[in-house]
């Protein structure tokens, strides 16, 4: 029997990069997957790709920054699949700028998706999980949420917020058998990091003991572990997935 057989997973920001890889991995481990993203066409396309590969998947369009969208999406997923076992709060954006130049819009946009979006979906998902008396929530933090990073005041603060939110969620719902953990990726090859300059990329590689960037699959494997029964006694933790960049 596969590790996530009969489980239903909801993954936000799941049409590209790390989120896409997480959907794939959770599906391979046996979970039915609710693919959540902003564009109705894209979520349907990814869900169709997963179904073509023989997995159970459906697409749901939502803006994670909107509380109403989160509530409606979770309600639809529970209606369609009958339950909700795993929530992966993966949706995240960057709007990098040096603090002196950072606009209020850049700050708000990143906070609204990365931090408020994680809160919105967590708040909506814990209700069916409490009724079931079981659930796993995995949040995507970042090593920069622990280290800070030049040009990422908004992103780093949002990810530090995700870490505190992870620990609070773990404490509030531990008695209901809901575990909440975070993973903190280091430097991972995705569209998000492809936008960085060659100089910045070279600088990152120099400080990674493993000597290579991470892949979305490196992240998805740890997320699958935290979403599984193998991690039933793990809660409130942040696992760095960074090739040893931050120890």
């Amino acid at each position, binding site marked *: 029997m596969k590790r996530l057989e009969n489980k239903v997973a909801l993954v936000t920001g799941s049409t590209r990069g790390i989120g896409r890889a997480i959907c794939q991995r959770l599906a391979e481990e046996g979970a039915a997957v609710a693919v959540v993203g902003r564009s109705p066409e894209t979520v349907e396309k990814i869900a169709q790709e997963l179904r073509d590969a023989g997995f159970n998947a459906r697409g749901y369009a939502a803006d994670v920054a909107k509380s109403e969208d989160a509530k409606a999406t979770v309600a639809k997923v529970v209606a369609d699949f009958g339950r909700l076992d795993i929530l992966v709060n993966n949706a995240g954006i960057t709007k990098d700028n040096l603090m002196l130049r950072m606009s209020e819009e850049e700050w708000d946009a990143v906070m609204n998706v990365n931090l408020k979006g994680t809160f919105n979906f967590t708040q909506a998902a814990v209700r069916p999980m*409490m009724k079931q008396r079981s659930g796993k929530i995995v949040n995507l933090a970042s090593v920069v949420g622990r280290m800070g990073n030049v040009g990422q005041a908004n992103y780093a603060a949002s990810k530090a917020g995700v870490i505190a939110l992870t620990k609070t969620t773990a404490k509030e719902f531990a*008695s209901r058998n809901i575990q909440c953990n975070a993973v903190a990726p280091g430097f991972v090859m995705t569209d998000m990091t492809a936008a960085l300059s060659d100089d910045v990329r070279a600088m990152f590689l120099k400080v990674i003991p493993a000597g290579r960037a991470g892949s979305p699959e490196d992240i998805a494997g740890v997320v699958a572990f935290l979403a599984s029964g193998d991690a039933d006694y793990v809660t409130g933790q942040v696992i760095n997935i960074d090739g040893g960049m931050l120890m």
Partner: protein
Amino acid sequence: MSTIAERVKEIIVDQLQVPAEQVTPEAKFIEDLGADSLDQVELVMALEEEFGADIPDDAAEKLTTVGEAIKYIEDNSADK
């Protein structure tokens, strides 16, 4: 059609997983029925759903017994 008191009791039995005979008007949620703070929030949300009522936080905090919850719903429910 069951009375408000009966419906409230039913919800309490379901939410707190306690025997119906323990759910007397004098029973205190925390001391007598073993509810914790999360149970209380869940209970209030379940009552709001059932009766289409909005129970503000400050009112919810004052509902410490079964009888108080029934009285509150009787006074404030949309479908009494």
